[in-house]
């Protein structure tokens, strides 16, 4: 099944705060949509990184008790929803006993981010909690939502930047590769005829790489390009 949904659950959060958090995390995706603060489903959003883009749906839910909500969520009736989830983001206070967080909330193919938006927690304490979770092979990661900095002492991303990083590194099953050139190469703007040909070749190469090289389209593209370049060079 295609895992192309992210579910975000808020515990007792006002509509304004909810929208503000959603914009902090998914702001770049929501620009092209008509997202309203009380929407519960936003479809066809695009998550972009320098390497890929992917389409996903954002589901928004609210609850009074995370414990009760998770009990409902792990019920077999929600199997279909869980199987379609790329990830789950819970916005609420981190429980005192983290061992109670069941491993079955999400499976190994999804991510679970627990965003603490209550009293400030020391970053070291949060780091310790995350290490415990990583060691127990749990998919949960705790993030402090109200962070004044983007990075901690080890240059780890924290707060919303970390949430974005987790979404970035998630193994999307249906992402579209952007064919980013390796290393730090940049395509220079054409300055004269020869440079414009070189730029065209470079762009053609990138386009060719994105095609199925065994297809007739790729063959046609290659032959047309070769003809065009030969014409420009006066051959």
């Amino acid at each position: 099944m295609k895992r192309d949904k992210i579910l975000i659950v808020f515990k007792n959060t006002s509509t304004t705060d909810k929208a503000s958090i959603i914009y902090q995390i998914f702001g770049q995706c929501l620009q092209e949509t008509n997202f309203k603060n009380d929407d519960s489903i936003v479809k066809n959003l695009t998550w972009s990184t320098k390497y890929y883009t992917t389409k996903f749906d954002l589901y928004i839910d609210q609850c009074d008790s995370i414990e009760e909500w998770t009990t409902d969520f792990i019920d077999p009736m929600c199997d279909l929803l869980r199987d379609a989830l790329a990830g789950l983001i819970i916005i609420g206070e981190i429980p005192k006993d983290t061992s109670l967080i069941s491993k079955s909330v999400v499976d190994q193919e999804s991510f679970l981010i627990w965003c603490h938006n209550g009293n400030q927690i020391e970053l070291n304490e949060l780091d310790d909690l995350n290490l415990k979770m990583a060691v127990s092979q749990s998919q949960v990661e705790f993030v402090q939502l109200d962070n004044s900095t983007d990075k901690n002492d080890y240059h780890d991303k924290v707060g919303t930047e970390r949430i974005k990083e987790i979404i970035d590194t998630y193994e999307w099953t249906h992402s579209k590769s952007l064919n980013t050139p390796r290393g730090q190469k940049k395509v220079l703007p054409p300055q004269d005829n020869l440079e414009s040909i070189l730029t065209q070749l470079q762009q053609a190469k990138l386009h060719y790489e994105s095609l199925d090289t065994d297809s007739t389209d790729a063959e046609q593209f290659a032959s047309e390009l070769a003809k065009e370049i030969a014409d420009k060079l006066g051959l």
Partner: protein
Amino acid sequence: MSHIKYLLLVSRQGKVRLMQWYTPLTPKQKTKIINDLTPLILTRKPKMCNILEYNDHKVVYRRYASLYFICGITNNQDNELLTLEIIHRFVETMDTYFGNVCELDIIFHFDKAYDILNELIMCDGSMAESSKKEILNNIHAMDAIQNNDHLDRVLS
């Protein structure tokens, strides 16, 4: 002379992003090393020593942002501090090549990360090249050859 046994690159979520083995080990032994070392190193506090003993050898690790670089080294043959420097050189080289390297760069261009590592450390675990400039020259030469191949194919 350094004789590294293996190098692992593990994310702070415990996912292995790169692994390179310089001594012959069975798949079972490799899995055991990964399964043993990942929790062992992830749970270490920041101020703890970066060198620890594991089975019959020592393990040197270093954390860079959300990634842990873990090296198994031969007792009485490898220098722990030199191994830390080798790890640092590997990171510096990737950083220069990718421009502020991040986990995503390694996931999507793992082939380049392996190429850089292979230029730095030989297949027997000894250091092949210490010059960052030289390593990058070789990697860029590889890129140029690869690009020429593509170009020939497009223009053929």
